[in-house]
């Protein structure tokens, strides 16, 4: 807050007093009726304004701060007390995770809470807590890594329980983000990227994925995974939904579904459905129509947890940087790559479409075959409706919750 804003109440009071004095001075002469009337009006205004200033001054300094401006700047907001329509709209926008945040959930009625939970479970699958080994775990890798147990111990990571999207984010879902002004709301984007956001446009120069036109997806592609989005766009959309991108360990755990068979040893699947590449279950080079298909196709591709198309169709952005093998480093000069996983419709080799295979891409690349799915830790959600008196965090207005980002 600058100096003018800080003292604006005092300035306004001084201006009003000066105006009244001038009017009274003119009124004493009484040879101009309009001036008298003006003087009287000025005095009335001064009285009202003074009362207002005093009221403002009486506001306690420790009053709760309002959150930043709502994320949706373009659409007409629901009436302030119309919680029902606001919840409905957010559920339509697949923002169930945002409604279940602990800062927000206290505003929901029981039936709204139940409906939100149902949508969460319909759209996202629970990945249980446990360990996962990242990197190659097959026999060939043992030689490369110089002994499996130690190498596995080094790459063994613990994953906290989380929810992961059952399907990759579709064009239709991403349009909700674009339509809600996601590309204009700078709070969703990392500050270092603000200059680049203006350049994230579609084929017609409108904000949106690289292969859209006029700010919309092409007809007939609404259920296809959104592609042509950079890592930053994926991250911003996930934030808007109240979620985040999954880490490598989370993604691999959801796909491989590891089972610990000893203190160190783990059994992990090569593909979400088992150890063998069944080409009828994945949209890869030579096994599909040589193009991206809808997220609901290849229904037998599901992992144990019920997550679809983790292998094939489109690569998926991960939250982490791309890792080369422990003995290799980047040659310098290039910016760090972000990890992508799962293979795409044009992935040629079977060994590059396994759950463990990791590829990399520049975070600003907007490729034809890279999409994303979102995750959220269970610790960030309230899955039981709080009973009794609302806590302090429940005071947050629901209309403001749209600005709560991960």
């Amino acid at each position, binding site marked *: 807050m600058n100096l003018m804003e800080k003292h604006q109440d005092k300035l306004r009071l001084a201006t009003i007093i000066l105006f009244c004095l001038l009017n009274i001075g003119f009124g004493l002469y009484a040879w101009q009726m309009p001036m008298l009337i003006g003087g009287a009006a000025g005095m009335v205004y001064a009285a009202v304004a003074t009362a207002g200033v005093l009221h403002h001054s009486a506001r306690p300094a420790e009053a709760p701060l309002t959150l930043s401006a709502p994320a949706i700047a373009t659409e007409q907001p629901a009436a302030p007390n119309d919680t029902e329509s606001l919840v409905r709209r957010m559920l339509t926008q697949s923002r169930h995770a945002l409604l279940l945040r602990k800062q927000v959930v206290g505003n929901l009625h029981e039936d709204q809470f139940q409906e939100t939970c149902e949508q969460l479970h319909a759209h996202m699958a629970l990945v249980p807590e446990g360990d996962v080994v990242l990197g190659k775990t097959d026999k060939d890798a043992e030689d490369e890594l110089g002994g499996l147990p130690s190498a596995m111990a080094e790459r063994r990571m613990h994953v906290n329980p989380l929810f992961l999207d059952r399907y990759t984010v579709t064009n239709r879902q991403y349009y909700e983000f674009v339509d809600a002004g996601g590309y204009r709301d700078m709070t969703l984007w990392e500050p270092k990227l603000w200059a680049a956001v203006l350049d994230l446009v579609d084929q017609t120069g409108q904000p949106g994925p690289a292969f859209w036109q006029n700010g919309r997806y092409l007809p007939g592609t609404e259920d296809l995974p959104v592609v042509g989005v950079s890592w930053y766009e994926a991250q911003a959309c996930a934030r808007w939904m109240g979620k985040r991108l999954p880490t490598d360990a989370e993604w691999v755990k959801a796909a491989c579904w590891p089972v610990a068979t000893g203190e160190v040893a783990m059994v992990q699947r090569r593909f979400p459905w088992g150890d063998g590449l069944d080409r009828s279950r994945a949209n890869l*080079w030579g096994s599909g129509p040589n193009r991206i298909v809808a997220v609901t196709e290849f229904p037998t591709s599901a992992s144990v947890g019920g997550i679809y198309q983790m292998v094939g169709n489109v690569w998926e952005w991960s939250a982490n940087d791309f890792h080369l093998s422990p003995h290799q480093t*980047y040659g310098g000069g290039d910016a760090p790559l972000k990890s992508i996983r799962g293979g795409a419709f044009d992935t040629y080799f079977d060994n590059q479409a396994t759950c463990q295979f990791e*590829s990399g891409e520049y975070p600003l690349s907007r490729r034809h075959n890279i999409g994303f799915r979102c995750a959220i830790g269970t610790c960030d959600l309230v899955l039981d409706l709080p009973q009794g008196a609302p806590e302090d965090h429940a005071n947050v207005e629901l209309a403001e919750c749209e600005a709560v980002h991960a």
Partner: protein
Amino acid sequence: MTLRALQPMKSSELAEWTLPVLCYVCEAANSREAEYCRRCSAPMALAHQALGQTARPKMVAILGPSGSGKTVYLGMLMDMLSRQPERLQIVARGAFSIGLQQTTVSALARCEFPAKTSTEPESWNWMHCEIHRKETVVASEPPSFLSRFARFTPRKQRTAVTNKSPCVELVMPDMAGEAILEEVEHPQTYLLVRSLLRNSSAVLLLLDASELSRGQRDPDFAAMKILSCLKELEIQGGAGRKSRRSVALVFTKADQVEGCRENPEGFADTYATGAWQYCRQGFRDYAFFAASVVGGCTWLEVRGEGRRRIPLRIEPHGIIEPFEWILEKLYPQGGP
């Protein structure tokens, strides 16, 4: 190098061994046991395979400067056609024709590029393959009453009829880019390259699109030199006439260049102006294509080995189309 094997003492077979065998590429006479042509160093296995055939296999030259992706293109082409034989079916003739496919695919699957092709002609890989083109023809008989009910429709009408064109044979060498340009600039340095440039029926000219898009003119100049040489070797003293040799100009690494894959001719007009003009003025049949094999690349620093470029994943695009176009030009009727 010669083959040493004990021959049975049969006069008829011994007589055969005295007859010279003409090199398939330069047509120089060689002894029967020679492994490589004594003049141009082409493998004599090509000549032996062509001996008993009625139609002589045609040669397609895969040309381009060093690093333009000739080895990767050729290896992937063979592998893709053998894995997905819907449109074209390819059968390698001889074990030596599978070597290039094997080394290329093995390296790419490990996320490595194949080793750089040596400038020694004897170490070059050759592909001699049979190709069957499949043409799908839908039955044109008028629909009968029964055809309204698919269950009762005669099988002949319900399914498309697949015609198999006669088999054609092609020979394609994987030459080193340095050797190609050396021969183009200094004739008679590599006799094998010269013979191939003269005798090839069609040309696949590969240029690195990523280099061109960065404003580097060297690939364009190299293409102009090669095209100039091709035209001179075909039309001796016939200035002004256009070459009848088909040229497919393929921009490789197109995944790294925005817009190249969608409009390769426009890319040529903008970034490879010299080659584009040369094609227009010097050749009757030419076409532009964009191809890519790798989905992403990065530089890798390996301890003790230095810095090298590695592919991050393999996503081939536009590999088969130029080859199909060449085949169409060579065999418009489907076969020899």
